[in-house]
């Protein structure tokens, strides 16, 4: 859990770090804290996993990953956890989750994000997942993204 000071630090950094030689000192000036306090709290947020990582967040389209497919799968509920772990273990899958179905329109309970520089590449990767799932796959689809409508990330 976070306190009010952590919250203030998150608000001050959620758009990014200042691009100046001493960014944590700049934040300290903004917040009215010492730079040591800023660094201590950031380290704590990193250690507790509230910060996943600190660094560059690329726009994956701009670095050549132009085909982005949300692959979705209907697999038996009693097998989804074992299969999800295997699909999530494939080196090209960036996110893999179990989610509820929305029947009848949406029968899929396993989601895996797959990226490539062409739709063919994404479809070939989806084939690898299909092969891994075998008979457990009762239905599947690939939803390609055609436009980023918003990508601001978290805002509190």
């Amino acid at each position: 859990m976070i306190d009010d000071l952590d919250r203030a630090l998150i608000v001050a950094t959620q758009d990014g770090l200042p691009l100046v030689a001493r960014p944590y000192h700049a934040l300290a000036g903004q917040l009215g804290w010492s730079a040591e306090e800023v660094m201590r709290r950031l380290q704590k947020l990193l250690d507790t996993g509230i910060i996943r990582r600190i660094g560059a967040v690329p726009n994956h389209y701009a670095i050549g990953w132009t085909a982005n497919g949300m692959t979705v799968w209907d697999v038996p509920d009693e097998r989804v956890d074992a299969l999800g772990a295997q699909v999530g273990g494939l080196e090209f899958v960036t996110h893999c989750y179990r989610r509820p179905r929305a029947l009848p329109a949406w029968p899929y309970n396993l989601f895996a994000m797959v990226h490539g520089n062409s739709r063919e590449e994404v479809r070939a990767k989806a084939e690898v997942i299909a092969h891994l799932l075998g008979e457990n796959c009762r239905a599947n689809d690939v939803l390609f993204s055609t436009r980023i409508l918003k990508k601001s990330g978290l805002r509190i």
Partner: protein
Amino acid sequence: MPELDAVDRQIIDQWQGGFPICASPYAEVAGQLGIVEDDLLQRLERLLADKVLTRFGPMYQIERMGGAFVLAAIAVPEARYEAVTAQVNALPQVAHNYRREHALNMWFVLATETPGGIAEAIARIESDTGLPVHAFPKEREYFVEMKLAVRQ
């Protein structure tokens, strides 16, 4: 795709995490890249301005702070797509939003500071747009690691 030189690629490929927490972190990273601090700062400014990077800084996980993160989708009539995009994007709780090819053609992520904030945001979008929102909260996470290198 904007022109990226070898150093730009190194920045993107090697520094998606691990940025140091110390007095002069850019100088430390620049040293490891074999460039000077000012060069690194100028490159980061350019990569952000060119939208090669969407951000440079901490990536937060709202669930670890007691908040919630939920994927949701709407089947938006084509004629209203732009207007509905504006209505949905207007909510600060909408962290990302993608158009996808499917009858459910708008997929977005809601990030809120409390789990109750999700239902509130969904109710707001349904009332603003008049369209049903399908929520797909994650029931289990098997893997998450969105670190993609620059494609050659």
